[in-house]
Each structure stands twice: as C-alpha cells, then as structure tokens.
C-alpha cells in the first residue's frame, strides 16, 4: 500500500473523467485541437518515452487559459503539462513576430517615445497589411494605443513625493500595460490606495512579468526578468511595505503560480504578499478597517467578465465583493467564457478567426446586457472586448476610483 502518490504535475491523478475537455474553449471551437486531456496528461505519458510524440502544432493551439485546471477535480496541472512540454521539447526558436509580441516592455519603451506616430502607424490599414504579410500579425486586429507619458514618469513627477505622508505603505507592480498603454489605471490605483490611507511605492526595478515571453517560448529571458521582479519585491517587503499589489490578473497568476514551476524561481516568501489590489481592498473592507465615502448620485450599469486567469486564481469573489458595495451600481455577472485573445495568441494571423469564434459567446452575452461598460481585471481581454463589442472595458480599480469621493474618503481614513 502506498500512502502518497506523486507524479510530475499530478499527471497520474488524472482519472480521464474528461471534464477538462468539456470546458476547453479551443476544443469546443475547432477540430484542429485534440484537447487538454490528450495534449496534457495523455500525451505526456508518451512524451516521457520519446520526443517524437511531441506534437507541437497541436500543443500550440492551447490558449493556456487554464480553464482545464480550474475544472479538474483532482488538481492535475493540465495546462502546465502542455506548456512545460512546449518549453522543454520545442525545436523552434521564436520568430520575429514572437519577439515583437512577447517583448511588451521593449516594444512599449520604443513606442511611447513616439506614441502619436506609433499609434498612427499601427492604426493604418497599410501597416497592418505589412505586419500581416511579413511577420504574421493579423491585419484585422486593433492594436492597443500607446500613451505619450509612461506611468512611471507620471508617478515620479506627480505622486512619489506625496506617498511618505501615509502611515501604511504598499508596493505596486504596475506591469507593462499600465506603464505604456494605460497609465490612468495606475493613477486610479494610487488615488484609491491613498484614499484608504496607504502610500504607494514602485519597485526598485520592475521588468515585464514574462507571461508573453513564456507563451512564445522565450523562457531564459522570462526567467531573468522574473528573478529581477522577485528580488525587487523581496527588497520592498524587507523595506517595510505591507504588501505588493497589482492590477493585472495574468501578471499576478504568472508571478504567483508559474514562476516556481515554469521558471524555477523560488518565491515562496514573496508569494503570499503578492496579490491583486482587489484582494487587498476586499480584505480591508471585510475587516472594517477603511471607511468609504461614495459620490453623491453615482449611477452606472456594468457587467463583470471573469477573465480566465482570474478564474484560475479564484479571486473574482474579491472583485465582486467590492463591486456589490458600490451604491448605484447595477451589476450583471456574465457567464464565464473565454474572450479568445489569450495575450498574444489572438494577434497571430493563424489564430485570428479561432480567437474571434471562441470569444463570440461572450461578445453576444455582453451586448445583450445593455450595460454601459464591461468590468474585468485583464488587459488583453480589454483589447479583445473593446475591439469586438460596442462597450468600453474598465478595471474594477478604475470603477472604484470613479464611484468613490476620493477626497472625502481620504479625510475619513486619515484623521
């Protein structure tokens, strides 16, 4: 009799119940993908025997949305089995397209320097056609706009000097998207945390979390960047910040769950202090430690989309806990469906149609709510939904900033 059962990524815990195949957004939209069970635990047994059983063209179809892992009743790391196989067995280096899409920070740094030109250029049909034909980025795709001023620049100019006045401090991992494309979310985060009586620090060094690098098989670079992030976080924690907050669900999941398993980065000591701002705020609210002053007459109708990686974290409850406390907010909760973009996946021309097909259920559901906006924590879902529906997409932190009387709240919390 054996008292414990261990296997790489829990592959032996798979009872072949096939629940994962029922929830897989890819498998349910194309015949070209054999599904999470076959590509994960089934094929892994043969891949252990010989690399010739590694079928890259099939495995590449995986979105890594991790809905299979959420569904699995036995904790099999289905998506991770697929991703580690790609990591360890792929014979192909990343192409120019992969390098362009995955290096969100380098591309961002370059683009923000010339933001108006970059935005103009990526918006041009001609440049889209060129990208489509040369590197294989789909010409039907809308690119996220680059901001003229990076979030970090804004922070150092307008926020850094005020943070010392707060008794409590948190560190903020903003991510590439906030820094280069959407600094307003970072600004909202600073305002909201300040209103609750928390100063916001940036990390000494922040690199792209690497999720896009990993999806495009650039693990060495991802590991280097990940190590920088974890070291900086560790230093920040030692320096006295209470926690490290984030606003992106995919960055967070990647740094919490995939750093140790996929990149071999030891971050046990940091992990428990690293989480989405909504988790931190939800806990503050539950503990009754903050006071909230809402704007008079605030009224809005939104629908909430649970991003795949948010579902994997299981943290949508925190967001919903906050949203439900906003007076005047009409909230529809959408059925959980993948939007189809999955980071850089939907940008590739061979995936565009599949990506839109996967998202179509969600898009229809969104339009049917007649809401004013969609709320979600994931920036790539934002691009996809804004491109594919008529609604704007906002982060719950921004919604909170919009609904709160920030000045009055800050006064109430710092007496």
């Amino acid at each position: 009799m054996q008292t414990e059962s261990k296997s790489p990524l829990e592959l032996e815990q798979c009872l072949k119940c096939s629940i994962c195949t029922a929830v897989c957004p890819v498998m349910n939209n194309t015949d070209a993908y054999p599904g999470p069970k076959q590509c994960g635990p089934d094929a892994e047994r043969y891949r252990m025997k010989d690399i010739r059983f590694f079928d890259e063209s099939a495995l590449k179809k995986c979105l890594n949305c991790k809905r299979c892992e959420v569904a699995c009743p036995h904790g099999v790391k289905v998506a991770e089995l697929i991703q580690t196989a790609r990591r360890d067995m792929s014979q192909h280096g990343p192409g120019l397209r992969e390098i362009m899409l995955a290096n969100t920070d380098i591309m961002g740094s370059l683009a923000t320097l010339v933001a108006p030109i970059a935005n103009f250029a990526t918006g041009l049909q001609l440049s889209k056609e060129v990208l489509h034909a040369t590197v294989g980025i789909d010409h039907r795709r809308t690119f996220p706009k680059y901001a003229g001023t990076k979030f970090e620049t804004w922070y150092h100019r307008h926020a850094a000097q005020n943070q010392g006045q707060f008794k409590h401090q948190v560190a903020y991992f903003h991510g590439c998207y906030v820094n280069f494309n959407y600094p307003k979310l970072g600004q909202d985060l600073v305002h909201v945390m300040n209103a609750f009586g928390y100063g916001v620090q940036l990390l000494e060094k922040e690199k792209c979390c690497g999720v896009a690098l990993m999806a495009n098989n650039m693990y060495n670079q991802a590991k280097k960047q990940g190590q920088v992030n974890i070291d900086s976080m560790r230093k920040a924690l030692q320096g006295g910040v209470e926690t490290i907050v984030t606003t992106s669900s995919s960055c967070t999941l990647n740094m919490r769950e995939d750093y140790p398993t996929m990149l071999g980065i030891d971050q046990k000591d940091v992990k428990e202090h690293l989480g989405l701002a909504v988790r931190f705020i939800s806990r503050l609210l539950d503990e009754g430690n903050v006071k909230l002053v809402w704007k008079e007459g605030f009224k809005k109708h939104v629908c909430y989309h649970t991003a795949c990686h948010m579902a994997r974290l299981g943290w949508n409850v925190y967001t919903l806990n906050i949203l439900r406390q906003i007076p005047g907010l009409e909230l529809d909760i959408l059925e959980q469906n993948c939007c189809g973009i999955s980071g850089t996946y939907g940008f590739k021309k061979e995936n565009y149609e599949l990506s839109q097909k996967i998202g179509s259920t969600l898009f229809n559901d969104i339009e049917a709510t007649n809401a004013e906006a969609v709320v979600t924590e994931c920036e790539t879902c934002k691009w996809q939904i804004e491109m594919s529906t008529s609604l704007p997409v906002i982060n719950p932190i921004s919604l909170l900033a919009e609904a709160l009387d920030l000045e009055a709240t800050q006064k109430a919390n710092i007496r």
Partner: protein
Amino acid sequence: MSQEYDVIVIGGGATGAGTARDCALRGLKTLLIERYDFTNGATGRNHGLLHSGARYAVNDAESAEECIKENMILRKIARHCVEEHDGLFITLPEDDLEYQKTFVERCQHAGIRADIITPEDALRREPAVNPRLIGAVVVPDGSVDPFRLTIANVLDARLHGADVLTYHEVTSLIINNGRVEGVNLRNNLTGETSEARAQITVNAAGIWGTLIAKMAGAQVSMFPAKGSLLIFGHRVNNMVINRCRKPANADILVPGDAITVIGTTSDRVPIETVDNLRVTPEEVEVLLTEGAQLAPALASTRIIRAYCGVRPLVASDDDPTGRNISRGIVCLDHETRDGMAGFITITGGKLMTYRLMAEIATDMVCKKLGVNKRCTTAENALPGTQPDSVEHEYDVVKDHSPYGRRSAGEDNRDENKTYVSHVQQGRFGNNAHNIEAGRPDKDALVCECEQVTVGEVEYAMEHQMVERLIQLRRRTRTGMGTCQGQLCALRAACVLSHKTGVEAAKADLRNFLNERWKGMQPVAWGSTLSEAQLIQRVYRDVCGL
C-alpha cells in the same frame, strides 16, 4: 472439421506461434491451436524484458548465451516489437561490489557487452535510478512487447499457409497404436466439438503442457512458479534497471511503451491452481519495497495494475524430484522417451528464446517427417518489420479508399496525426500505414490513453483475428492505459458489435471490465481506487450494465 495436417501445434504463446511460423516457413501444412486468445499464458504475463542474458551470466552460461543471440536476432526480425534502450545492473551499498567483477567477467565470456560506468554517469543516463548506488554496469537489455511479437509470428504463419484456431481447447489426443494422430477439440465459445489430424503433434502449451502430455500417457514433471508484477502508470525509467546480485524477488524494472513494470516474485504453486491465480497483498508489498530500491520514485508512483503468470519450469528427466530445475530449453521426443510416436513437447525456456525453441522443435518435426529444410526464422523479418514494398494478403494497401494515411489531403485534423500515427507505428511497424485514417469517423479515438483510433480497431478486426475486447487489448493496447477501460471499453465494444452483434458485445464488455477490475483490485488505493469507482459509476449506474 477433420483435416489432414503435417503438424499440429498446441498453444498460442510465443513458443507455439513461433513453432507454427517455423513449420509453415519450411513448407509444412500447419495448424496452430489455442484454447483462448494468443498470449493468454506466461507469454502475456511477464516483464516484457528483452533480456541481454546478463541476468543468467553468472549461474547459467548456456541461457545467457542463448539470450544474447536471440536478443540480437529479435532486434532485426521484430524491430517494431522491441525498444532498444539498454539496461543497468546496479550495486547498492548493501550488495557486494565483488559480485560486479564476476558478473562482468561472465557476461563478457557469454558474449554480452557489459560496461562498468560510474554511479554519477548512471544517474545522468537514468535519473530515476536509486542515487545510493555504488556501482553500475550497462548491458544491452531492452524491452519487447510479447503481444505484438506473438501476433506477428501468427500472422507470418498464416501468410505461409498455416491455419489458426483460437478458443479451441484440446480435450484429448487421438491415439492409435502408440501414435498420436491428432487432437479432439472443443470450441470454448460455442461448445462445439471437432477433431484435427496430423502426422506430428507439438505440445507447446507452457505450464499446461504437463496436462497435454498426460493425455498421451507421458509424464513431464513441471513445477509451476508463480511470478507477480506491478504496472506503474507512466515511464518512471527509460533504461531497464536490475540489481547486480544473485537473482531475487522484484529486482527488474522494465520500461515499455508508456508504462513501467516491476517484478517478479517467485513462488511454487500447485498445478491445479494455475488457471485461477491472484496477486496477494504480501506480493504487492514485496514488489513495492524491493522496487523502491531500484528507483525510489516507485514508492509514490501510481500503480495501475497487478498481474501474475506461471513459469513452466521443468525438472530434468534424470531428476524427477525437481531439485535440479532448469530454465533451459527442453524438447522431448515422446517416441524415444515414452514410446508415443508423433508427439513432441517443447517447453522450459523463456520468452527471449521462443524462436530458438521453435527452431529446435521444428528441426525435430522435420527430421521425423523426413523434410530437409533449413530454419530461416532468424533471417526473415516478421510482418510489421518487413520493408514497405512487401505486400501481404493481410495488409494489402487499400487503394480503393481515397482516405489512406498518405493521401489525407485537406483533412483538418492532419496535424494531430503526427502524434497518433507515431503511436500506431510503434504498434504495427510498417503495417501502420494500412490503417484507415484521414476522416473523422476513422480518426475518432476509441482509447484515449493509448491513442487507438476507430480505424485501428477495424484494422485489428480485419487482419489480426480480433472479435473480442481482450484480443483487441493485446493487439492495440486498448484499455491498457491509466483509465483501464473507463472511456474506451464501451466505444471499442460498439465498434466490435458491428461484427459480433450487440448482445455478444455486451457480454464481452462485462467480462472485460471484470477482468480489468481483477488487476486493479490488489492495488486499489488512491487514484486507482477512484478510477475503479468511476468505472463502476459509468458502467453500472449510468449504462446499467
């Protein structure tokens, strides 16, 4: 049925199938008889180890030499049945390192390559090996799929004109004037009786050979030795791992296909019990404890099955007490030995030496029949290993089908095939391309753990004498994966029912699931227990079986 044959071979194990093949290749009109399905006895219940012979080198030089010769032959003639991954003989701190010296010397003496490597090198080559090892020797061990090997022999025998009967049991021998002239048969599926006649009858029935011999009034003293083995859910090791010491319990760990097998135990059992053996909890304990000495990961790796077989050990004729048991090949001419003409028993030996045993038996048959033909089984490759250009009646390329694997064209599952077809190639060798594929109804998976498609099931039904799930399992691995039939059994039964009818398929399904449970029961804990419960839920509670 009453037909004249030159030779009747009793027993559908590797030896019987090999003998039938050899006889057929030498132009004899041959009938092969098996009372259930092929490989039902010891052939199908062992490690599947492609012995280098190293294990016998110290104590049994003759067996060692036979093994290494046959090992090299099988790599040539049965390429699609073997995996050439080499083996390690490891010395642990509690073993005597002196033994390694003797071991290597004797191996070299027997013609077996045996290279001493450092423990570090051993760990690099085989990360699963016990890191406590103090010595390691690399030998040309490998693994062999006994099911595939046996069916390949059967197919080649048929190709050369042999008739084959499965589910036919010999109820008695037809004896006239001190001569065996044939066999009386009972169809074990229908109960019908019949007879078949031949000039020579070869008893290749393994441990059951002692009962066949008794029908001719001859005593062949056999000592049934039960050996139990465990199957782990995935490949823990990629090289065979043995202990470098005197052979003992559970000291061979063999990777084969997608699994790893540890074995064996060894216990004498009464001949009356050999049809109803079960693996005991004590045996499981021994296998687990000793196995963890070879590869510590075994202690916490899921076990999907336990099974046991019976070695046909034969007492040498001059020592009927059985003290002097040989694992060597025994070929008895009952005419000179017992005054019973037309009757030969071939027994003893090992899976590894099945071809040599067949050669020895066939030589004797030929001598008796006055046929002067040389044995060619060591040169002629088996079906599946033969070059593509050779066309056989049983694998004629289906040019009437526009869907052949090679012309899949615009099929949108084409990419998926690279994986599935690799797996199938492993099972069928160069016959794999005759499996219909390239359209959804043929590519649909029947067995997901082992990647068996509808096309493959149909191929097996058409060309490999498959009507029942147990036959399908042995030909294609359907139901051998971690789910042990949970997903595949029903689907496979559906495909088979096109040939056998729904009621027969239902009964077959019930038997198959019970047989699967028999192997899971001794190791029913953890995920394997959950799996068994899920199977029960699906079949009893949902399907109402």
